[in-house]
C-alpha cells in the first residue's frame, strides 16, 4: 500500500481570488501548481511561512492575470467599462423617484414616520448599492473571462471620483461630515465588484471541471 501525500489546505480566500481572476482552463493548472508548492513548503518550512508565500503568490498572480486579461481584449473591455459607467449614471436617476413613489403609494410618511426616515436616507443609499450591484453584473455579462478586471476598474473609477468629490466638498464647506459619505461610496464600488464576482463564479460553476479531491 502506498502512502498518500498529506495535503495541507491553503488559505481559502486566496484560492477563491485566484479562481475569480483566472480563466476556467487556467484555474485548474494554477491552483494545482500553487497547492503542490504550498504543500511542499508547509512540510518543509511550516504552515505560517507557507501561508505567507501563498498570499504573496496570489497577489502577484492576480496582478498578472488582470493585466493579461485586459491586454488580450483592450477595446471590448474598455467599451464594457464605458457602457457600465453610462448605465450607472442612467440607472442612478431612478433610485430616489422609485423610493419616494413607494413612500407615497403606501403613505409611509403619514403612518410610519421612522420607516419613512429610514427609506428617505439609508434606503436611498441602499438603492444606490443595488444599482451598482446590477451594473456590475451587466458589465460582467458583457466581458466573458474578464469580469473581475472590468468591474474592478469601474469600481476604482467611481471610488476615485467619490474621493475627489468629497475632498472638494470638504474644502469648500469645511464640513468634515461629508467624509463619512465615503463609506457609502466605497460600498457602492465594492458592490460593483461583487456583481462581477457573482457572474464569474456562476460561469465557473457552469463549466464542468475534473473532480477536486
Amino acid at each position: 500500500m502506498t502512502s498518500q501525500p498529506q495535503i495541507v489546505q491553503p488559505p481559502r480566500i486566496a484560492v477563491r481570488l485566484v479562481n475569480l481572476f483566472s480563466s476556467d482552463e487556467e484555474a485548474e493548472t494554477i491552483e494545482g501548481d500553487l497547492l503542490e508548492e504550498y504543500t511542499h513548503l508547509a512540510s518543509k518550512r511550516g504552515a505560517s511561512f507557507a501561508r505567507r508565500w501563498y498570499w504573496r503568490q496570489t497577489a502577484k498572480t492576480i496582478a498578472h492575470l488582470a493585466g493579461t486579461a485586459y491586454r488580450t481584449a483592450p477595446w471590448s473591455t474598455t467599451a464594457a467599462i464605458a457602457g457600465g459607467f453610462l448605465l450607472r449614471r442612467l440607472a442612478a436617476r431612478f433610485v430616489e423617484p422609485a423610493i419616494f413613489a413607494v413612500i407615497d403609494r403606501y403613505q409611509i410618511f403619514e403612518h410610519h414616520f421612522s420607516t419613512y426616515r429610514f427609506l428617505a436616507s439609508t434606503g436611498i443609499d441602499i438603492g444606490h448599492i443595488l444599482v451598482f450591484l446590477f451594473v456590475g453584473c451587466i458589465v460582467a455579462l458583457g466581458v466573458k473571462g474578464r469580469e473581475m478586471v472590468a468591474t474592478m476598474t469601474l469600481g476604482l473609477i467611481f471610488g476615485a471620483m467619490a474621493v475627489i468629490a468629497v475632498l472638494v466638498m470638504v474644502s469648500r464647506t469645511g464640513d468634515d461630515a461629508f467624509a463619512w459619505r465615503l463609506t457609502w461610496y466605497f460600498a457602492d464600488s465594492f458592490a460593483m465588484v461583487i456583481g462581477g464576482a457573482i457572474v464569474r463564479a456562476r460561469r465557473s460553476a457552469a463549466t464542468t471541471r475534473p473532480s477536486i479531491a
Partner: protein
Amino acid sequence: MTGRDYLGEFEHIIVLALLRLEDRAYGVTVRQEIEFRTHREVSIGAVYATLNRLETKGFVKSHCGDPTPERGGRSKRFFRVTAKGVSAVNRTQRALHSMTEGLDLVRSYS
C-alpha cells in the same frame, strides 16, 4: 524581420528554462528553475501569462498530464519549445551578443 521575432527579457528566460527542463517543464518546475538561477522571486501568474503569450506566438506547445494526488487531483500542464521557439532564442541570443560585443561593461559602466 520584425520585433515579434525576438523574445522579450522574461520570455527569453522562460524559454531557456523550458530548454533546460526538457520534458519536466510545467508551472512549478519552471518557476523554481528561474528562482534558482536568477535569484528573483517569480509568481506563477507571471510564468503562465508569459507561457500563454509564447504559445500564441507559436514558440511553445503545451499538453495536460494526468491528475496527481499531491495537486489535489488537478493535472499538470507541460510545455515544450517548438522549432520556431528555438529559432527565436537563437536570434535573440545573437542580437544580444552583437549588441554587447566589444563592450567592457564592468570597467566602463560600473
